[in-house]
């Protein structure tokens, strides 16, 4: 057993905050390894120690293995938590962390190699008799070869980064005409996001649900699962709304999918938190991939299971976490997470960057906010547009949906546009309410930009009157217009 005094965090934004909080609760200090662009952030302000590891460009900072390890050593940390994205599923990173005498908080580099690489993982699944979606996972990455394979599988075909997740380096090909361009684009995104341009192809199931199981291997190597999440609401293969547990599984399916998830994780000698993703169509399930890390949507599992996955990860890395059957229970109630993206829903979701104004998250029972930025921080164009997650828990799904709607309507983000209006539309959609949505839900019902509602007369009056009051308070006359303490920072809305 190694007791950590200090943990380095090789990440940013809300997940860095999440890890710092777990460290605080365990009495462990934190070292935030950050880029030059992330000084104005909550994680920077909260960490015990901060070390700048490079410029804004991810290749030179968050994806730079040497810089992260040197930062962790300089900061006097005994372990590194990689969060999700960036280097979290990079086996070379896990290996070099160990070689530097540090502990990687996550599965071993061997596990990441066998399960994290989607191609190897599928070989393993085949041996275990877990069903797979038809596809191509070969080493030959020539565009002509990939096009030929895509034709053979039959369109629609999905092209994916072999080393990644989270929607980056992932494209849907509908016909042979677009195949070349989309495959090249996926390879470029894969290279820039994960450091490897390797992609693979898969038949696209057109009415499938995305269901995943949270698995966890304790210090002794015993793997169990903490039930399922449904993440069918995705746009461009990026999840938007996730919930636990899935409204679509029968007891029988839940049991057999959970067994399959534990079987593959056990084969990969899994230690720590991981996620086994499946597609479910017509009561048949297919293994999609294993994510060898903490998942963005881990809070919904924590809410229904009454556990803290990040603390469990740290304790497992210290060699002291063992599953206790007395404390493992069935899921209770229902939890939903909405990802808040800095984007304009009325302009097709283009990213919205700039200085954050007032931020307000309405407190109350069964609500949880995970966010990385506060008023006065700047949302930059260098990183993922997700700026916060809103999580609710209630006794059942209809109540959880109602609570989420209320919470989103009462949340305020000024300075950048967010997808909140879009989330409200989705949560109110009949198919979502019934729980019958598939991974094509967004493209079927929300492919167009939302239409921005005209201001009502009342809203116009409110704006006018608010402007007058604000100007009086600032002591600025009507005519001078733009003067405000904010104007010097203003970058564009």
């Amino acid at each position, binding site marked *: 057993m190694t007791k950590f005094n200090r943990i380095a965090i090789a990440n940013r934004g809300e997940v860095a905050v999440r890890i710092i909080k777990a460290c605080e609760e365990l009495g462990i200090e934190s070292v935030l390894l950050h880029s030059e662009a992330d000084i104005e952030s909550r994680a920077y302000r909260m960490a015990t120690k901060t070390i700048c590891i490079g410029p804004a460009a991810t290749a030179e900072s968050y994806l730079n293995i040497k810089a992260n390890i040197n930062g962790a050593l300089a900061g006097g940390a005994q372990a590194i938590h990689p969060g999700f994205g960036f280097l979290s599923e990079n086996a070379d990173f896990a290996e070099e962390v160990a070689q530097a005498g540090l502990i990687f908080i996550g599965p071993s580099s061997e596990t990441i190699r066998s399960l994290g690489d989607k191609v190897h993982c599928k070989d393993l699944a085949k041996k275990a008799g877990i069903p797979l979606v038809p596809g191509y996972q070969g080493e030959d990455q020539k565009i002509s070869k990939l096009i030929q394979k895509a034709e053979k599988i039959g369109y629609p075909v999905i092209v994916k980064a072999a080393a990644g997740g989270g929607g980056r380096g992932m494209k849907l090909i509908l016909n042979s005409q677009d195949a070349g361009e989309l495959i090249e*684009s996926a390879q470029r995104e894969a290279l820039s996001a994960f450091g490897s341009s390797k992609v693979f192809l898969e038949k696209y199931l057109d009415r499938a649900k995305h269901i995943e199981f949270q698995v966890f291997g304790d210090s002794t190597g015993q793997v169990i699962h903490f039930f399922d999440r449904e993440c069918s609401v995705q746009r461009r293969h990026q999840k938007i709304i996730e919930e636990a547990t899935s409204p679509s599984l029968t007891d029988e399916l839940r049991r057999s999918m959970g067994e399959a998830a534990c079987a593959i994780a056990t084969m990969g000698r899994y230690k720590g938190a991981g996620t086994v993703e499946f597609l479910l169509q017509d009561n048949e399930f297919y293994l999609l991939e294993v994510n060898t890390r903490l998942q963005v949507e881990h809070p919904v599992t924590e809410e229904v299971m009454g556990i803290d996955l990040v603390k469990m990860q740290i304790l497992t890395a210290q060699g002291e976490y063992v599953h206790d059957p007395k404390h493992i229970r069935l899921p209770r109630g229902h939890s939903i997470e909405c990802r808040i993206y800095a984007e304009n829903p009325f302009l097709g979701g283009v990213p919205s960057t700039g200085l954050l104004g*007032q931020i307000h998250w309405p407190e109350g029972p069964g609500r949880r906010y995970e966010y990385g930025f506060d008023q006065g921080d700047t949302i930059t164009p260098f990183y993922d547009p997700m700026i916060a997650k809103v999580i609710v828990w209630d006794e059942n799904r209809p109540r959880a949906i109602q609570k989420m709607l209320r919470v989103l309507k009462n949340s305020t983000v000024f300075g950048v546009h967010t997808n909140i209006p879009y989330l409200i539309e989705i949560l109110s959609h009949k198919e979502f309410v019934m729980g019958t949505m598939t991974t094509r839900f967004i493209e079927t019902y929300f492919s167009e930009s939302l239409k921005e509602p005209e201001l009502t007369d009342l809203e116009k009056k409110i704006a006018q009157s608010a402007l007058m009051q604000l100007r009086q308070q600032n002591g600025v006359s009507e005519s001078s217009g733009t003067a405000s303490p904010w104007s010097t920072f203003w970058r564009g809305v």
Partner: protein
Amino acid sequence: MDLKLKIDGSDHLVQAQLIGTTLWVHSKGRTFTVDATSGRRARRKTGGAGTSDVILAPMPGKVIKIFSKIGDPVKAGQAVLVMEAMKMEYTLKSDLDGIIDVISCAVGDQVTLGKHLVKLMPAAKES
């Protein structure tokens, strides 16, 4: 900040903040912006609607691929260039049939929101 406004005799609790020239308001479950200089709805800086002979950067980001050269014919809906922002690629397409007239960016350029990237010469309408 929280404001209590009296409008047509009734009270309204709203949140409002002036950031630069934009007024941000949150009222009754909805956030909206108003241009504080004109009092109208905040102006859209990007060519969001309608056909246009210029392709503007819809967000700050990096130009990572340009498919056409000056003088190349393009069809409406054809991909002209690709930008990357927040680790995602966005393909920018031509709004109309025409010819590439001006390209005012290069691969690798970091561009600001609303920058003119490409100008098109619309194809002559058949009469």
